[in-house]
Structure formats: C-alpha cells, structure tokens
C-alpha cells in the first residue's frame, strides 16, 4: 500500500508524449481523475498526434493539424503539466526524480516510460549527410515535403510497410522513387512471395521502381554537400537527392538502460506493464512484453489500458500479448496479413491464386484452426478471418467454405458483401441509420477514432442491428492501416466494468448474488448504478440464475419489458395477444374487433408470427386494452419466447405426417413467459415441405412419418442462418424435453443479447450435443430447471389488470 496521505496527490511523470503514453493517461483520467499530479515530457515540439496518419500527410491527403489527437488545451483542461521539446536524460531511482538535458529535476511517485522507438540508421558512409532522413515524425515529413518541391530523385531504403508508404507519398508529391530492398521480395515479414509479387507489380504500374536484393554500400556526397547518389555493394549506383531510411525501428531504451532497468530488445515489462522497478511502468514501442516489442497501435492501446488500471490502483487487469495484423495504407491497394501467414511445419495451406486478376489468398490452418492469413487484392473477409484467428475457433465444420468468405457460408444478408476499399464515399454502409462511407472515414480521421465502438458512438453506424460491423471494421482498417484496434475477442459488459459477460454470470452463480446492487458491489462496478447497457444484462443474469429468488428489477428493464408492450416511434405502443400455435376463435376475434373500435386503433396487422398486432395504443390505455382483450400476453416485446409458428399439419393437410398445430400449441403453452438472453422463436412443420419455415427459427421442429426432427440455431433476421439438425425423436413428450433442455442451456450460458446462433457458433454443436443428447440425466435436469423457472412467472397482463401491479406506470399526473 502506498503511504501517501489522502490529501496529497501522488506525482506521476510520463516520459514520452506519444500515442501509447497519452492513451494510458486518458484511461487513467477515466478511472481516477484526481489521483495524480501529472507531468509529461515530450522530445518533439508537438502535442500528441496520430503517428499512423503521417503517411496520408506525406501523400498530401491530410494536414498536420488534422492528425493532432490531443491539442494543447487538452493537457491544460486536465491539469497536466506538459513540457514539449524537453529531453529527459536521467532517472534517479533512489531519489525518485527525473532530470532533463537542461538540468530540470522533477520528482515522481510513479513513472511511466513511453519513449517509443527510434528508426534504425544503416551504419554506412554518408548516412549523416543532409538529405538523408528517416520516416518517423512530423519533422521527417516536413523534410520530405520540402525535398519533393526542389529535387527529383528519391530513394527509399527498406521495402517494408513504412518504406512503401513513404515511397508512395513521395511519388504522389511528384518525385521519381526507387525502393531499395535487401530481401528477395517486398514486405517479407508480412507477405509471402506470390502476394508480394502482385503488390510489386501494381506499385510498378503506379510508377514506383524497385531494386531488390541490393545492399547499400555508401551514400555519395554531391557538390552542394547534400547526398546525390546511392552506391550498392555489387557496384551499381542510382541517383538520389533524398534518401529515406525505413529499415526498421529499435525500441528507445537509452534512458531505461542508463538508469539500470532491465532491458532486452525493449524495456522488459510484466503482464501488469511494470518494469523491474515496480514504481516504473512502461508502455508502447519501447516496452518488451514476453519478448515482443509491438509496433502497431492496437496492442499499444491494450497495454495503455492495463497500465492505467494499475496506476489507478484497481489492480485487476493483465496484458497477455496480442495477435496483430497488417494493412498497407496505399490508396487502391488491398492487402492484409495476420498470424503465421508463411505456413510450414505442421500447418496446411488453402490457396486461391489469380495472378492476372490480381487476387491472391492464402489461409494457413493448424489442427483445424486458422493460424495465419495473407490476402491480396480481395480483403473483404479480412476482419472475419482475423476474428477466427484471434478466437482460435474450430473451423472443421466450415473448412470447405472458408476460402470463399463469410458471405458464402449459406448466409444472406449484406454483411461483407460490399468491398470497403472499393466503395465510394456516398455509398451507404449502415442501412439502419443511413450512414455513408464518407461520413465514417471523415469521423475516423477528424475525431481520431480507432475502434468499432468509437465509430458506433460517433457516427451511429453499426449501432443498431450490427450487421455492418464487419464492413465498418474494414473501413477502419483501410483508413488506419493495420494500426486500428480490432474488437477484442472478449469484451467487458460495458464501460461500467472490466468484467466480461461470462465473469459476471459466474460470479452471480458462484456467490449467489440476488440483486443488481449486490452484484455491482461484489464486482466493483465503476459507476454507482450502471447504465442502460449493463443493467438489463445483470437483471437477466440474476433472474435466469436464481428464478424465484433474485429480484426482477423493472427499472433495469428496457421500456418494452417494463410496460409489456412494444414502444413505437411516436411513443405509442403495439399490443400482440397470444394465439397458441397461431390458432384463434370467433370470440377472441370479436373481442379484438371490439377493442379496435373502442380505442380507435389506427392499424391492425397480421404479424409474421401468426398473430394480430394492434398499433397506436396510448400507454394509459394499455391496461384497459388488456382487460377487454382478456387474452394472455404474447411477449412480442421481450427478450422472451415470442411465437411458435405452425403449419396446419395432419389434421387437415393431405401431405401432413404429424399434428404440427397441436405440437405448436403444446410447446407454446409449456414455454411461454420464458425470459431469455434474446428473443426466441419456435416453429413446427407437419412434414418436410416445412411450410412453417422451421429452418430459420431458434428451435425448429419438422414432423416426419416416424417422428419429429429437431433443428436448432436458425435465424431469419439480420443474417439468415439455417438451423442445424440436433436430433430426431419419436414422441411429443420428447420434443418438449429435448427442445426445452436445449433452450435452458442457452438461457443459462449465453451472453445477454446473443441469439441462439451466435452462442452456438461460439460453443460449437458438439458441446450442445454433449449437454442435450449424450447426458440423459443432465438433459432431464435442464428441462426441470426450465419448468421450475417458468412456474414462478405470471402472465404480466393479467397481473396488471387483476392485481394492479405497477399501476403507476400507466397513470399521468395532470396539472
């Protein structure tokens, strides 16, 4: 424990004013805004800017002002003392002070080293000549822009990501550019040979020249004293008025090493981002975590978050390394690579190659998991492949379709059909909120967005149905290059906590938490009473884990589930009474007609789920409407069992093999009132013609002559998913037990707002078969637990009409 008295703030000093360090400060300010007096030293004379976007600045697509992430005002608003253009040269660990080159000394309680990296300069003669620079900061870009207006010949040494982006920028500025590369092909750390050849070809078509397998011997001094040519070890030479060295970066550990901190290709840090001196943290390109110093922004931001968590003394977060991916920020070139793209050893390759069409795709598999990918020319599915790779998902069941991408998995829906890079700015990305590509790109650049969540918040794209999330991730990565922060595989529930959905569920179960305040207290929620994202999730986890015991908190439910009707855009509600298995009778229809007259219902509509929907009901009228209908709630408004759709079946149909209508009625009567992580739809068809469309329902039952087939995990919404065959059973009782057990596993284990299909994709069909088919006792227990949970639920409409529950909801104060 720190012994600092509470009235005195601790002192935090940060050395380095770059993206990783400042992100750590931002995260810290969110967690503990008043814990530290913060002082920042930056060697560059600028506030924190987006280093990733130096390439577009060089190419003339953006200005320096566009890429500033934290203007000077940000530092003063947050009471951060900023010293720009000051270099820290010494850390006195005994007295806990840093010292600058001009003799200034500042004490610290915690020190954050974010010194980044230095470009590697080839140790050749002439490397110090005027006109020889690296590509690292704004000063370098200024030097390149200036050179491009005066000189003709540019040579870029290094055919990696940075070198090619520099070459592209200089070419756009009108220079003749040659790229010198020691390797046999370009970007050998990110691409295999076939992909690199395609890349080289298309860059050559743009006018770039390549000198491969050339080793630099000397940079030649011209008459003016400036560099004028480059000489190679094989005796060749080329004219050069500007030489850009982009042969790699080295973690900047000079300061750390001189102060005795353990360094090994970077400042060595633990999973808590602490160096060997626990008062000193390090994040960013200077830090070596488990032997890796990362050079891309996504891992650095993860590190920043972890460091902030510990600096704020929360002490629960760990950094466990990152899987990174690469994209080249050269307009018109689609390229992506991630993981072990080279293959070899125990791996298997799937390759699609069309050199003339300019498309090359290679997927590397090991033990039925995707371990690497290298895509050129068509990167539509890069976000999906990267997700499969990070999650380590078993792809055995989709292996034969893997190469053809996500949209070829038998799904429809527009996700990923469009090619982000090829889209024009006016093309619509988010169909729900009408957001175009240009709006998203503009927000990413101007507001400094890095993650899908950022884009959702600022533009509303992908914030409704989410089917364009993949496309938005593509736009992020094509705008920012490989440096964007891909959505982590496992996410916290919301901004109120670090905990994931699964951790929250486990805590509620293992510690028998029975209310939302108890859960928040136990799990150290950061906000006093959560938010509109976490509260509904917590409420569902509580009531599904402890039915009859946990408190169902109406104020933590979305309006529809609190009011038991569906809110519409004008603030009125729609009412859908339950019609068991899609059946009704004259008396019910008469009552519905009377209600429509009495309350002047402006619209009556037959739903897709074989029921009747009354629109335009005022909230105050709801209890009256329910009383007059005298029918049970259809739960058409809830994350709950909606409808059991049926075909007429063997009672009337000449093809019917089973009485599907009765089966539907039985299922609906057994499972109605069931809350779930998301809405749940059933359907029962009486023969394989499947008129009830059972193949796109969460649970679909198809009658055959010898019994019933049960299908699970179908979805007719956002992305059509065909249900998978689970089992064939003989009797109606078995249909109830097996489908009930399946739905209970989903209720107990899926994350809130997972549809069955999303949950199944994560846990796999084998797991579901194990729980529902192979373990008979387990199946029966699951079914019993479901029946018990349902036994404590009441018809919400009847409760409100007869028992006056939640009366206040429906009364207005008139004054």
């Amino acid at each position: 424990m720190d012994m600092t008295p509470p009235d005195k703030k601790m002192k935090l000093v940060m050395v380095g004013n770059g993206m990783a360090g400042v992100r750590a400060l931002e995260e810290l300010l969110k967690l503990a805004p008043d814990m530290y007096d913060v002082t920042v030293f930056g060697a560059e004379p600028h506030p924190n800017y987006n280093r990733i976007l130096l390439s577009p600045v060089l190419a003339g697509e953006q200005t320096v002002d566009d890429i500033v992430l934290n203007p000077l005002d940000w530092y003063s608003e947050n009471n951060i003392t900023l010293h720009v253009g000051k270099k820290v040269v010494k850390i006195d660990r005994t007295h806990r002070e840093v010292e600058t080159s001009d003799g200034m000394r500042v004490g610290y309680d915690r020190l954050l080293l974010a010194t980044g990296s230095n470009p590697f300069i080839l140790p050749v003669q002439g490397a110090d000549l005027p006109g020889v620079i690296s590509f690292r900061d704004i000063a370098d870009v200024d030097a390149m822009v200036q050179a491009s207006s005066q000189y003709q010949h540019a040579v870029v040494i290094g055919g990696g990501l940075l070198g090619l982006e520099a070459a592209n920028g200089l070419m756009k500025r009108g220079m003749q550019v040659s790229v010198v590369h020691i390797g046999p092909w370009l970007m050998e750390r990110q691409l295999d040979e076939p992909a690199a050849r395609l890349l080289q070809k298309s860059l050559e078509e743009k006018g770039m020249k390549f000198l491969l397998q050339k080793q630099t011997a000397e940079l030649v001094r011209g008459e003016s004293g400036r560099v004028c040519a480059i000489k190679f070890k094989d005796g060749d030479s080329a004219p050069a008025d500007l030489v850009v060295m982009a042969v790699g970066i080295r973690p900047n550990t000079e300061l750390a090493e001189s102060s005795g901190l353990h360094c090994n290709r970077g400042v060595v840090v633990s999973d808590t981002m602490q160096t060997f001196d626990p008062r000193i943290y390090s994040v960013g390109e200077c830090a070596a975590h488990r032997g890796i110093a990362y050079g891309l922004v996504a891992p650095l931001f993860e590190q920043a978050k972890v460091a902030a968590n510990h600096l704020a003394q929360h002490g629960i977060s760990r950094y466990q390394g990152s899987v990174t991916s690469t994209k080249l920020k050269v307009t018109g070139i689609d390229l992506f690579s991630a993981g072990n793209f080279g293959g070899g050893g125990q791996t298997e390759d799937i390759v699609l190659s069309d050199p003339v069409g300019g498309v090359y795709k290679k997927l590397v598999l090991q033990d039925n998991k995707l371990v690497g990918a290298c895509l050129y020319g068509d990167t539509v599915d890069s976000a999906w492949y990267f997700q499969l790779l990070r999650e380590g998902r078993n792809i055995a069941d989709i292996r034969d379709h893997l190469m053809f991408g996500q949209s070829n998995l038998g799904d429809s829906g527009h996700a990923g059909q469009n090619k982000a890079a090829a889209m024009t700015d006016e093309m619509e990305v988010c169909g729900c909120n009408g957001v175009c590509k240009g709006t998203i790109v503009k927000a990413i650049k101007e507001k400094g967005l890095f993650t899908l969540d950022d884009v959702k918040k600022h533009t509303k794209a992908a914030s409704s149905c989410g089917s364009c999330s993949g496309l938005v991730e593509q736009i992020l990565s094509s705008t920012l290059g490989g440096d964007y922060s891909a959505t982590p595989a496992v996410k916290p529930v919301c901004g109120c906590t670090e905990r994931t959905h699964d951790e929250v569920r486990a805590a509620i179960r293992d510690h028998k938490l029975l209310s939302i305040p108890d859960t928040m207290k136990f799990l150290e929620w950061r906000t006093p009473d959560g938010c509109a994202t976490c509260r509904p999730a917590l409420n569902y986890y509580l009531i599904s884990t402890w039915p009859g015991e946990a408190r169902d908190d109406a104020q933590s439910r979305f309006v529809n589930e609190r009011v038991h009707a569906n809110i519409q855009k004008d603030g009125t509600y729609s009412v859908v009474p339950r019609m068991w298995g899609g059946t009704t009778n004259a008396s019910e229809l008469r009552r519905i007609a009377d209600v429509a007259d009495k309350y002047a219902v402006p619209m009556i509509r037959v739903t897709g789920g074989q029921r009747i929907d009354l629109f335009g009901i005022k909230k105050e009228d709801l209890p009256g409407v329910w009383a007059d209908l005298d029918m049970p709630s259809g739960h058409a408004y809830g994350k709950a069992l909606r409808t059991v759709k049926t075909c007429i079946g063997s009672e009337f149909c000449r093809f019917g093999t089973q009485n599907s209508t009765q089966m539907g009625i039985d299922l609906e009567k057994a499972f109605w009132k069931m809350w779930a992580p998301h809405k749940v739809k059933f359907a029962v068809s009486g023969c394989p013609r499947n008129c009830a469309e059972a193949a796109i329902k969460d649970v679909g039952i198809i009658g055959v002559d010898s019994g019933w087939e049960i299908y699970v995990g179908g979805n007719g919404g956002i992305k059509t998913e065909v249900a998978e065959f689970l089992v064939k059973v003989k009797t109606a009782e078995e249909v109830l037990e097996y489908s009930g057990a399946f739905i209970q596993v989903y209720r107990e284990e899926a994350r809130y707002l997972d549809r069955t299909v999303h949950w199944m994709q994560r846990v796999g069909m084998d797991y579901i078969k194990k729980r529902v088919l192979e373990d008979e006792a387990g199946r029966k227990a699951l079914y019993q637990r479901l029946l018990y949970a349902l036994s404590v639920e009441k018809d919400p409409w009847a409760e409100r009409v007869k028992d006056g529950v939640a009366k206040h909801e429906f009364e207005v104060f008139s004054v």
Partner: protein
Amino acid sequence: MSNWIKIAPLSEFPQQGARVVRHDGKDIAVFRNAGDGVFAMNDKCPHKGGPLSQGIVSGNTVTCPLHGMNICFDDGKALAPDEGCVGTYPVKVEEGVVFLQI
C-alpha cells in the same frame, strides 16, 4: 408568472424511474434517480422526439428508449459525442412532496 405546482408525494415516483406530468397539453418527465434526486425536463428527446420518461435512469442521466441517446439531468444536454438539448424545469421536494415550477 411561474409558480410552484404541487405534483405528488415522492413515494409515487419509482426510484431509477420517472412519471409524466401533463400540463397544458404538454408532457413533462419528472425523474427520480437512485439517490432520490428529482429532475424535470420536457418528455421529448432532441434526437427524434422519443419519450424520455420511458428510458432507463442511471446516475444523473436517462437513456432515450428509441435510439439510446443519453441526456444529462443537470443541464438537459446530450452526452458527447451526441449533440442536443432538452428544456429542464425547476423541481423541489418539500416534506416528501414533489413540486414543479412551470
């Protein structure tokens, strides 16, 4: 001339919830948060006119039920990055009774 109008006992307002006060054909949402703070504003989200009284209340904000915009009770402003503002009304609790100034 604005006057304090007596509305109802505080106990009639759900914690982390709201009631609607109808005045002169206009709906005003009166919120009560978890700390028993009481706030009033027009029952109309600046985004697309959603009834804010029906939103989830957390801390000093309400989340509009239609599209999820967050509105702060203190000044009626939408939380960043959203933009927009709702008119607020003075409200007070005296001896357990809520009064509204319209």
